[in-house]
């Protein structure tokens, strides 16, 4: 790029003429000792030098002035531009041609080099810009980086970069500057294959924006457009991935749920129809058995539907705990009383000290946590084995509850995944349930601010969970004291 001002250029011409004049003066003093062909050769030195230093224009001027001064000072008759001898004329002509050719050649090479340097700089900048932009993943950062880059390169007075698609952004540089009261000197659309994504506006009066700069800017802009568009596509892709995942989940739910709902329904239908058909003796044990089965299976259906509802409530954030000060043992005992029929084949060992502090939990949700953990423990551990429920204050911030059973160990790599939705280690048809119970527990414990995890212990499998002891920072309230009767 030629940013030299006019004055600078003029100075170079002047210097070129001056340098030739200097050479002429020095050579003039040596006129008697030097042959004129040698003088002609020596004259070529400044011409080459000048062209090399200051370019083609000054080079040509120096060649011309060298030619004139050579003729004037060194070709007889001296001090005229007239030439008498034909050989002198030949020398002069050859000199002029050689000087011109040298200055042309050197000048062109210079110009080519300058252009190459400019191009190289452009390419480097573009490379830098695209390297930075590749790592960016949102429109805000992209627009900021692009704007700053353009601003450092073009040194404009004011710059606006606007991205007007999905996540609109507007970057203004330099920060805090006010918009000039005139239309921008340059407006460039950020154009991508799928349409205009935004616009860049630059205010720069002096020096005016050259066509080379404009071209470079266009390259920058299209680079920016590419990145914004790529980002847009990436977002679309991740959205469609999420949709695909949820679609998969939905079909998993559907198949699991229809299986889970149909099984008890099938049992109920079979029992009822055999009762209605009169095939079963009215007073037989079979009748009692069938009726009990119907009762059990409808309870089971209720549980499945309840778990599904809870899961969707948890997911939508609607299952917000109503935390109140509760006595943990009261909750556990209530659960055990209601699960009596299910726990019948197991020995329940309850180890909850009487002096535990009040615990800020949602009563109903904790009932659910214990119900699900217990029914899971019952399901996977052999009959007549012991299920132990213990609670301790772990430290001043939280209570630790452990429910252990003598069921089989879970592979270490699955310990976390058993709390995932619809995840079951055993084959779906061997154990009933849709794999929601534990993920509901996890959801509830986490909305309470606690943590839940499972671990294998020698001879047992343990569910652990913690619950914070404070309710939004406050500790269990003190009871108003009352005088005990004698």
């Amino acid at each position, binding site marked *: 790029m030629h940013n030299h001002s006019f004055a600078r250029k003029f100075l170079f011409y002047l210097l070129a003429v001056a340098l030739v004049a200097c050479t002429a003066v020095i050579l003039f003093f040596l006129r008697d000792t030097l042959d004129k062909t040698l003088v002609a050769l020596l004259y070529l030195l400044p011409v080459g030098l000048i062209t090399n230093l200051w370019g083609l224009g000054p080079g040509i001027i120096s060649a011309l002035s060298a030619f004139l001064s050579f003729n004037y000072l060194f070709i007889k008759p001296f001090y005229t531009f007239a030439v008498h001898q034909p050989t002198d004329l030949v020398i002069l002509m050859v000199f002029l041609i050689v000087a011109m050719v040298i200055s042309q050649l050197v000048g062109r090479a210079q110009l080519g080099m300058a252009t190459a340097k400019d191009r190289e700089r452009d390419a480097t900048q573009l490379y830098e810009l695209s390297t930075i932009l590749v790592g960016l993943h949102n429109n805000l950062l992209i627009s900021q980086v692009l704007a700053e880059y353009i601003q450092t390169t073009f040194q404009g007075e004011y710059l606006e970069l606007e991205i007007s698609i999905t996540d609109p952004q507007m970057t203004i540089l330099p920060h805090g500057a006010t918009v000039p009261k005139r239309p921008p000197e340059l407006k460039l659309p950020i154009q991508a294959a799928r349409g205009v994504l935004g616009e860049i506006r630059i205010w720069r009066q002096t020096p005016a924006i050259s066509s080379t700069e404009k071209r470079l800017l266009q390259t920058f802009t299209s680079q920016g457009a590419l990145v914004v568009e790529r980002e847009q596509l990436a977002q679309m892709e991740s959205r469609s991935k999420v949709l695909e995942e949820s679609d998969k989940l939905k079909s998993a739910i559907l198949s699991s749920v229809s299986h889970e709902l149909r099984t008890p329904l099938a049992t109920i239908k079979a029992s009822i129809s055999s009762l209605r058909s009169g095939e079963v003796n009215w007073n037989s044990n079979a009748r009692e058995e069938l009726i009990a089965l119907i009762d059990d299976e409808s309870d089971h259906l209720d549980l499945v539907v309840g778990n599904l509802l809870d899961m969707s409530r948890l997911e939508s954030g609607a299952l917000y705990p109503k935390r109140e000060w*509760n006595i943990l043992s009261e909750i556990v005992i209530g659960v055990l009383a209601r699960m009596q029929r299910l726990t019948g084949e197991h020995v329940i060992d309850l180890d909850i000290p009487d002096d535990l502090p009040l615990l800020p939990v949602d009563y109903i949700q904790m009932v659910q946590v214990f119900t699900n953990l217990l029914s899971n423990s019952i399901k996977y551990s052999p009959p007549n084995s012991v299920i132990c429920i213990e609670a301790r204050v772990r430290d001043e911030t939280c209570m630790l509850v452990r429910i252990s059973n003598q069921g089989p160990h879970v592979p270490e790599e699955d310990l976390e995944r058993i709390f995932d939705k619809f995840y079951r280690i055993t084959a779906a048809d061997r154990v009933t349930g849709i794999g929601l119970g534990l993920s509901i527990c996890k959801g509830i414990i986490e909305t309470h601010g606690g943590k839940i995890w499972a671990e294998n212990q020698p001879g047992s499998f343990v569910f652990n969970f913690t619950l914070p002891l404070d309710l939004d920072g406050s500790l269990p309230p003190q009871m108003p004291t009352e005088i005990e009767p004698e």
Partner: protein
Amino acid sequence: MSLNPHILVIDDEPQILRALRTILTEKEFKVTTARNGEEGLTMAATGLPDIIILDLGLPDMDGVEVCARLREWTDSPIIVLSVRDSERDKVAALDKGADDYLTKPFGIEELLARVRVALRHSARKQGSKVNLVVAGELQIDLSWHIVKRNGEEVKLSAHEYNLLAYLVSNRGRVLTHRSILTHVWGSADADHTEYLRVYMRQLRKKLEEDPERPKYLVTEPGLGYRFVGDE
């Protein structure tokens, strides 16, 4: 009260209406049904039922609202029906004057037990007050403020006694936390469920044979407590 008590069932599910009509008629109740809140209110006003069974999820108006409107003029017991996990609605209905609740799906024995309790309670309200309540080994004399267990007097603090007396005089019915707290501690303490938890534990220790498996002072998860006495 006529020989066959009159039950009004307000529910928008035809299947539930059909089932309840069949079962309750079989049990020699006179049954009328309404399919929405407006119809229910009208039928309650014209039929003067002895008991109202009210579903909380009605198409035209909020069941809690129906409950409140009924309570403006009738003392007939109201048993609310609702689906699982709508404890807040249940509590609201109970606080608005409903006497008891049942969670769908429910067993018919449960429903009949609640109906019996409700009928007895409204009979008690009309008849003379019973001052001596017996529950297993417990004897509670509400006029002399004496509580005996296996014939021996149990010493209770003032709050403990007030709590017990309130539950006992509403025996068989569920009482919400708020209603118990307001009644025993005063409306300023209506949110301090922790008082209730702690005092209930103390009462159980003094009165229940196995405080871990209470027979008389029963917890209604998320709602409140119920005293279960002898029939």
